[in-house]
Every structure is written in structure tokens, then in C-alpha cells.
């Protein structure tokens, strides 16, 4: 009986202790933010969206290779000899036209692995988190700043140059082959001559 009274008392005591805690919170301040009106300030290094400073990109493809989910899609075209693409702010010479630099943020898993290999520090995370879209394709960010005509032109030029190079190489190959053939012919001739000579000499004996 006494034990039951004691137990009941302890139960009530623990309930009142708990209620004391909650009523203190009742009169305490709120810890939440009213989101669209108040926004949380993200710290400087927050990883919320990928950004590419395309002027600094040299098209080395290291970030795309580092990505575990393959969300970075890069297409480069070698610059022709007549154009100088300049240098990045870090001093690396640029040798490629970036005809495509797409990042699919719907696939991205914000792991930061692409940021570290970049030799010019041109790909990095920015603390910008409000970019939801109704259509998934809008989450593919196109960072390449080349106009489509420019892309075509660049490609054509590169193709031409490549063709020219190819032709030159073919030419060279042909020349080489001709020279080689000539040489061989000459050698053969020589050999033949020598052979006939020898024959003659032999025959003369």
C-alpha cells in the first residue's frame, strides 16, 4: 500500500517535472526561421550548386573523370593555329574550344570531388540553393559560352585543320613512301647492276 502511494507520487512528480520543462519552452523563444521571409545565411564554403568559371577552363576533362556519377559532360575542339585563346587567370595556356560544358545538377551528388583536381580552380561550389525547377531538363546547366554558329565555325575550322593536317600527313607519308620506294628502287638497281656486273665478271672468267 505504502509502496503504491510512493510509486504514484513518483509518477506524478516525474510528470510535473516534465511539464515544467515544456512550459519553460512554451514561454521561451522560437528557434525556427520563417523561410521565404527569413533566409539562412550559408557559410562561405557551402556546397549547394556547381559553378564553372568558363573563362578559366582549359578543357582538361579532369573534373569529368573525377565525377562518380558522370554528371559533367565536356566536349572540346582543338583550337586552330591561327587563333590564340589566351591564358587563364592562373597562367595556364588554353588550347581547346569548349563547345560543350554541361553539368546536370539533377544527377550531381555534391561530393566536391570534381573541385580538387582542377588545375585552374575554375570549377567550384557556390552557396546558392534556390534553383528548383518544374522540368528536370532545366537542371542541366550549360556553361559553354560559345554561340551555336561559333561552335559550328570552330568545328569546321578544326575539321579543316585536321583534314589539312591529315592531308599534310598523308602527303608526307606519300613522300616518305615515294622516297622509300625510290630508294628501294635505286638500291635494287644498284643491286641489279652489281649482280649483272658480278655476273659479267663471273661470266667473263
Amino acid at each position, binding site marked *: 500500500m505504502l509502496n503504491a502511494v510512493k510509486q504514484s507520487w513518483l509518477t506524478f512528480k516525474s510528470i510535473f517535472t516534465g511539464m515544467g520543462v515544456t512550459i519553460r519552452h512554451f514561454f521561451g523563444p522560437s528557434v525556427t526561421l520563417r523561410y521565404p521571409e527569413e533566409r539562412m545565411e*550559408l*557559410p562561405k*564554403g557551402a556546397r549547394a550548386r556547381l559553378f564553372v568559371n568558363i573563362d578559366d577552363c582549359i578543357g582538361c576533362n579532369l573534373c569529368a573523370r*573525377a565525377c562518380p556519377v558522370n554528371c559533367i559532360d565536356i566536349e572540346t575542339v582543338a583550337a586552330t593555329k591561327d587563333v590564340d585563346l589566351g591564358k587563364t587567370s592562373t597562367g595556364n595556356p588554353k588550347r581547346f574550344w569548349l563547345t560543350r560544358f554541361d553539368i546536370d545538377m539533377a544527377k550531381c551528388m555534391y*561530393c566536391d*570531388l570534381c573541385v580538387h583536381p582542377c588545375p585552374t580552380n575554375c570549377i567550384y561550389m557556390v552557396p546558392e540553393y534556390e534553383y528548383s525547377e518544374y522540368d528536370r531538363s532545366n537542371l542541366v546547366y550549360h556553361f559553354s559560352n560559345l554561340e551555336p554558329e561559333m561552335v559550328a565555325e570552330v568545328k569546321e575550322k578544326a575539321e579543316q585543320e585536321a583534314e589539312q593536317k591529315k592531308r599534310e600527313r598523308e602527303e608526307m607519308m606519300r613522300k616518305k613512301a615515294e622516297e622509300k620506294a625510290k630508294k628501294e628502287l635505286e638500291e635494287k638497281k644498284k643491286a641489279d647492276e652489281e649482280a649483272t656486273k658480278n655476273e659479267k665478271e663471273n661470266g667473263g672468267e
Partner: protein
Amino acid sequence: MIEVISKETGNKEMVINMGPQHPSTHGVLRLELVLDGEIITKVRPHIGYLHRCFEKYAEQMDDYAKVIPYTDRMDYVSAINQEHGYVIALERMLELEVPERVEYIRVIMAELQRIASHLLGIGAFGLDLGAFSPFLYLFTEREKILDIFEKVTGARLLYNYFAVAGLMRDVHPEFKTDTAEFVKTFRPKIKELNDLLSYNKIFIQRTANIGVLPEKVAFNYAASGPVLRGSGVKWDLRKNDPYSIYDRFEFDIPVGTGEVGTLGDCWDRYMVRVKEMEQSLRIIEQALDGMPDEGDVMAAIPKRIRAKEGEIYVRTESPRGELGYYIVSDKSASPFRVKARAPSFVHLSLLPAISRGSLIADMVAIVGSIDIVLGEVDR
């Protein structure tokens, strides 16, 4: 309605599906319960709803480092601890030296993550038993830890912060003061939690003598972490098989005492977690004192890791228990096989052993007290 006649009692039994969409299965877990009235005669857990092929991914990656973000996603509540286990496994296998400063930062981060994970586990446990407010109070504290993490790593939940033999980036200058401030403000909250929930009589009545796990069964099922310690076994890998620099710190291993019920019941498992948070605070304080202010956060190692042939099993103490990585390497750039031995997986398998004969409401308490994360169960 599926009804079966029990062979033992001759009563009509009812088969009921708890989950995969149920408020207190902590994710997509399906428990097939056979009920005699409200008493459970059989439990069959069904898992696999969250299977995301972690092990296959790990084999398919062309780099050991690319697996790290996937380890985060196994136990998304304690991502740092998952990374810690994986990088330690690789460092041990490749015999890499880790800089001093890195070790200290890793320990601080891992212990903060342990507190964050326990806060969620305890809060969700209370929520299962109907106490809503403690959950949100604890969540507030967890948010503070996540704020610290965001400032350091840039992410709030899935960090990818540990790299092989280093860290992805250095901590910011205010890291020490921020963490010390958190430790200071957090201590009184544990007392408040004890007032509000731990020693509440209703809570004790709900959790004491429920789901008792005897020591012998615990070992046979390879239980670990708070579940094993709740049964009164002083076993903590940070002390018994020290990794990283845990041997330098002074802390206790809290174990279940059975002070309100039987040794190894739900309340003991719960209380072990509460006490562990205090111990983690102690470790953090010591680590903050010992942490060198200057130093490299990345050891000089080759950019791409190529292991020789061999295999290793490394286990670390994650908030949920023994997290093991069994890694087999061949000469290629990717692991030949990575198996994650997830503590939640093991603990869930002992659920049928400790829940026979209890009520549905107890089932909820038991699932909450072993604190599973379905992401880790299914991997």
C-alpha cells in the same frame, strides 16, 4: 483478412504487415507480425526496400576515393563515421601515415557526428512512444552540430569530408571556438532530456523489462555498440581495439545497469546512448585541447591509389555499433570487393529473438531502441 490457427495454442491468429510505410519503422522496413490478439507470436523482418547496390558501385568505380561519397549514403545519419571506417581501412591496407592534425580533426568530427546520430536515435525513440516534444528539442541541438559541419565541410548531411590520408579541406579558423561553444551549451540539455524523458515514469514503464537481450544471445548474434553495451558488456572498439588516436583520450564506457528493470532492456539501451553523448563531449574537449593549430591536412600520397593484392577487415565504432569494411584489392585501380558489415543489419536480425511474446506497442519500442537506419541495413 488472413487468419491462421496457431498450432501451439489453438487460438486464431492474425497476420499483419507493419510497414513498409509505417510511422515507426524508421524507414522502409516491413515487419510481418503474427498476432494472437495483440500479442506477437512471430516476427519476420523483410528488408531490401532501400537497396542501392553500394557494394556493386564500389567495384565499378575506377578509383578508391570515389567510393567515399557512397559510404556517406549508407548510414545517412552518421555519414562521418562511415567515411572514417573506410578511409582507415584503406590507410591500414596501404600503410599510409596520417598527419597529426588530421587525426584530431577526424576524432572531433566523428564524435560530434556520434552525438548528432544519438540525438536523432533517442528523439525518434521517444517519438515512437508518443513523446513528441523531446524529439524536436533534440533536433534543435542536432541542427547546431550540422551548422558546425556545414561551416567546415560545406554540406549538412552527406559530407565527403575525409580523404585517404587526409581531409578534403582544412577547418576554418573559428572551428575550435564554435565547437567549444557547442559543448558548453549542450551539457545542460542532457539534464533537461533526463528530466523530460529518461526518468519519466511513463517512459520507464514503457521501456523497462521490454525486449531483454541477454549477454550470451548478444554475442551469438554479434551485437555491438550500444545494443551490446546495454546488456552490460564493457565493449567499445575505441577502447578495446583502438583506431585513429582514441587511445590518447580518457573516457568511460557506459554500460547498461538494469537500474529500472532487467539488464539489457530497452531503457538500458536508451540510457547507454544518453551517457555516451556525455563521454563524446569529454573526448571532444580533450581533442580540442590537443589539436595542433598548424599543420597539413593532406599527407603526401600519389594522386591515384593503386593497391597491391591483398585484403583487410577493419572495424570501427560507429554510433550504431561495429562498422566493418572488408576490402579485397587486386592490382587494378578499383577495389575487387568491398563488403560493408553494417551494425544495423546485424541488429535487425536479432529482432525476432528479443520480441517474441511482446505487444505491438512493445515492438515499436524495441525497433526504436536498437536504433536502425534502413539505409545501412540495405546498403
